[in-house]
């Protein structure tokens, strides 16, 4: 039963091998989907290319539904997987900054690597900016970010725990939401195809 490393079925040395292999898959898929070019990524915000939303939602739906079914079938123990700890304020402000970076730079940290891998100089510059940003954060941490960094720590809590519902119930509503968003992407694409603009 998974997760194999956590359950001790495989020794921890395998962890890094898996990381590499999974990374290959991740990078391959992202580049194949077209996330290696900023114009395609930004398209979702301007209505001319909804690829980002489609890929993102499909991936989350697949993974979350898959995990829940795997858990039910006893193939994975869902209580052992990593749950991102919630730092409310950091998540919101940090998220908005990442969003700003996405619009200004046209990439997010992951996609910039894809772009850089296929030779896009703006992707490489974005990565350079990432290093500078992290370094800036590290240097100013003590007097600028420290309090914010740890504020609002709710721990590794899931949305269904907060709402007091079961994971299956939450997934159901999420699927409804995802179905709605998928149809919205079609509507938006149709609406924007009538507007002619160059991008």
């Amino acid at each position: 039963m998974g997760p194999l490393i956590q359950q001790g079925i495989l020794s921890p040395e395998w962890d890094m091998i898996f990381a590499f292999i999974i990374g290959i898959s991740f990078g391959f898929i992202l580049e194949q989907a077209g996330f290696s070019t900023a114009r395609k990524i930004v398209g979702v915000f301007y209505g001319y290319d909804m690829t980002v939303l489609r890929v993102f939602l499909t991936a989350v739906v697949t993974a979350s539904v898959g995990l829940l079914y795997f858990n039910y079938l006893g193939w994975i123990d869902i209580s052992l997987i990593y749950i991102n700890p919630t730092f409310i304020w950091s998540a919101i402000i940090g998220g908005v900054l990442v969003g700003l970076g996405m619009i200004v730079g046209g990439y997010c940290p992951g996609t910039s690597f894809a772009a850089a891998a296929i030779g896009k100089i703006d992707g490489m510059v974005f990565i350079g900016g990432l290093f500078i940003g992290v370094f800036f954060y590290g240097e100013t941490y003590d007097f600028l970010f420290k309090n914010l960094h740890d504020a609002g720590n709710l721990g590794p809590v899931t949305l269904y725990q907060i709402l007091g519902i079961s994971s299956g119930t939450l997934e159901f509503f999420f699927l409804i939401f995802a179905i709605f968003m998928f149809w919205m992407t079609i509507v938006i694409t149709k609406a924007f195809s009538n507007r002619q603009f160059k991008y």
Partner: protein
Amino acid sequence: MEKIQEPKKYMNPYLAGFLLGLTMIAAFYFSGRGLGASGAIKSTVTAVVSAVAPAHADKSEFYASYKGEGSSPMNSWLVYEMLGFIFGALISGIIAGRIKKDIVKPPKITSRTRLIMAGLGGVAAGIGATLGRGCTSGAGLTGMSNLSLAGFISFMAMFGGAFMFSFFLRKFWINKA
């Protein structure tokens, strides 16, 4: 009507999303965790700072927390993952014939402007990803797949924020034909 056909065909987004979801399930199944990207940057910065100024790194709460136990911060899951990521993206680019050293930019924008914007965007994303404990891959994608509260908050903040800012930069990215 169709949008402008790309010269090289990209993978169907639903298929790509489905495969990406399978990849994430594999990550959870084998390593008990999801994907990520910004963490590799943090590890690298910590490693560089530790190598150049070890005393300073030890004193700083931030770097110390990323140094981890014992071995180098570069010996982390995310670093190996991103190495594989670059490799995978490279292979994909080669297969699709998309390897080309150029600058992706919208029309009517000079390369110089584009690169400056890319750099600034990177800085913002770097700060944001460190503060928010992840980027769209780690916090958003993985966070939502394991139904964590952090994932949903991060996703809404990232995409909501981007939508907000997109209004102000529309002149940059799109131009009326």
